[in-house]
């Protein structure tokens, strides 16, 4: 096992810069997830750690060793590929032990590790089959098996679940979590699915356009997004971003006024002062999950009511129901539970805890709570 350190790592393809100076430390035994939309540089970053892409500038260390010029076969890493990359002419057994044989592991040890991996991944009945005779989920487990039998310093996962259907994806997520619990190997996992990021990670790196937007524990990112991008990218359904105005009385959202909570007053005052005390536009972020139907809400000291909101769409999902409503000029979504049995085109009163409301600078997109 080992830590992985990236210092100002840059990737260029000709004139195009794909990754701009990534600084990142992945601790020994940590499960780190790189998440972001397509083309954000997360896979490129992973492939630079694997040695499959050359590093244009900066330093990559595995443990204490600088690996920039070390080819992949000498980095002692294991990797799970999106398309499994199983050797089609080798049986499941041969696929799994291929790397071990290369490393000249004792046959008894190979046998032991194969048996353990096969049991853990429930592959025992398939060991003599060729990959073509396996289902997608089974292939994915073989790819996983190939990684875990190796005594690798780091496990790398490149969108390993994106070719599976929703149910399998959920099962394999649990499987990966279990593997990490058992082996405790430093893991770096790339995905575009924020649910995988939230559920698997010790820490998450949110990337966009080759930049790191935020690094933190999943719940910290969920509760305290650094900017508009992470706020809307992490969490499903996505955070409502509403246009409001900030002045000395508080934040105005249509006909509603939200007082600035004590924790954010200093930042709000500074923001106003910078604009010469004039009212200024502001982005208000509220997660659909944090709206409550006032009829059932427990009001805290920081709770505010938004009365008489017009309900446009109601989508019942079983226990939850998602409603789309109008507030000010914007439309927003709230996730309520089945107690709120409301009809479309009626009105509703929603309550929200101000501690859960975020204010973003409309120009920089930064979360004002974190600016101070």
């Amino acid at each position: 096992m080992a830590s992985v350190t990236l210092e100002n790592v840059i990737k260029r393809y000709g004139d195009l810069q794909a990754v701009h100076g990534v600084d990142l430390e992945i601790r020994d035994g940590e499960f780190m997830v790189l998440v972001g939309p397509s083309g954000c540089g997360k896979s490129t970053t992973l492939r630079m750690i694997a040695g499959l892409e050359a590093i244009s500038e900066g330093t990559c260390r595995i443990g204490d060793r600088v690996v920039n010029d070390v080819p992949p076969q000498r980095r002692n890493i294991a990797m799970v590929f999106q398309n499994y990359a199983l050797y089609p002419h080798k049986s499941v057994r041969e696929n799994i032990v291929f790397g071990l044989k290369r490393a000249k592991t004792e046959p008894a040890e190979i046998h032991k590790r194969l048996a353990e991996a096969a049991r853990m991944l429930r592959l025992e009945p398939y060991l003599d089959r060729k990959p073509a005779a396996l289902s997608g989920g089974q292939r994915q487990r073989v790819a996983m098996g190939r990684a875990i039998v190796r005594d690798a310093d780091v496990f790398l996962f490149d969108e390993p679940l994106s070719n599976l259907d929703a149910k399998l994806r959920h099962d394999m997520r649990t499987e990966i979590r279990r593997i990490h619990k058992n082996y405790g190997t430093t893991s770096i996992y790339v995905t575009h699915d924020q649910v995988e990021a939230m559920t698997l990670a010790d820490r998450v790196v949110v990337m966009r356009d080759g930049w790191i937007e935020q690094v933190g524990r999943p719940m910290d990112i969920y509760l305290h997004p650094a900017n508009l991008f992470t706020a809307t990218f992490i969490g499903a359904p996505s955070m409502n971003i509403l246009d409001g105005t900030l002045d000395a009385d508080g934040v105005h959202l249509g006909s509603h006024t939200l007082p600035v909570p004590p924790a954010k007053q200093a930042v709000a005052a500074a923001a106003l002062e910078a604009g010469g005390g004039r009212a200024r536009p502001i982005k208000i972020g509220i997660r659909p999950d944090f709206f409550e139907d006032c009829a059932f809400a427990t009001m805290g000291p920081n709770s505010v009511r938004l009365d008489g909101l017009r309900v446009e769409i109601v989508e019942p999902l079983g226990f939850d129901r998602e409603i789309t409503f109008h507030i000010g000029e914007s439309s927003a979504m709230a996730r309520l539970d089945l107690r709120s049995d409301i009809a479309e085109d009626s009105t509703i009163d929603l309550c929200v805890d101000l501690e859960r409301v975020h204010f973003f600078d409309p120009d920089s997109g930064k979360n004002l709570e974190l600016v101070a």
Partner: protein
Amino acid sequence: MKPQTVLERAENRFGWQLVAPSLGVIGLLILYPILYNVYLSFFDVQLVGDNVFVGLENYQRLLTDSAFYDSLTTTAIYLLGTVAGTTLLGLGAALLLNQDFPGRNVVRGLILLPYFAPVISVVFGWQFIFDPVNGVYNYMVVEVFNLTDERMNVIRDPDLGVIVVIVFDIWKHFPIAYLLILSKLQSINTDLYEAAAIDGHGPWGRFWHVTLPELYFVLGTIVILRFIWNLNKFEEVFLLAPNVQTLPIFTYYTAFTGVIDQGLAASVSVIQFVLLCGLIWFYVKKVLKW
């Protein structure tokens, strides 16, 4: 299964109508000559007058004829040399031209030229190269490198001629091997190479464990195609080095030159045909495992 409904029967009939013309042509141009050839091999064929049935006598004469065994040996050398040579050279060229380098597309096109060139014109070119008096080969060997003192007529010598014929065939036909191998190389998933690198293999290990297994069937197909083509190959050998007697050339000389004996020639053809069928059967069952 017997077609049940009217529609199925009609479709069946239509199918037979569609393949009937091809069946007719194949029967006329391929099956009939083969059968007629087998028939002739049991006769002392008279150019004028009636053929005389001789039973297995033609075969008995062949099996005691040392010229026939010489021809078999020459054919074996020719086949092994050309099949191995074209396959290996094709593989090497394909691996090289699968790498990225400036001007690759031009080279990829140029390398096909020998394959396109008409046999008759390149054969004369090659004969000129090996000409004892004016050829560049003898000039290089004798004058420039002083390897021997004596100018040789390499092409006319049956033992050396077979080597020239083999080299000529490799040069002329490796592009087809190269083409087939390259197209397969391009379809190999790069993930596999990356996975093998991660599993600890350098370039040689990746070639051995990823490239070769992926190429197995293409290489197998090339080998069997080359075997079939070259066992029957006539014009290149005959035009370039008429003293190199592979089976088709031997058959030709027996049938149409000197003491013309078409019955004997027919029995050589039959043996060659049986040999070819046996080879193909063995190869398909044991190597390709179809």
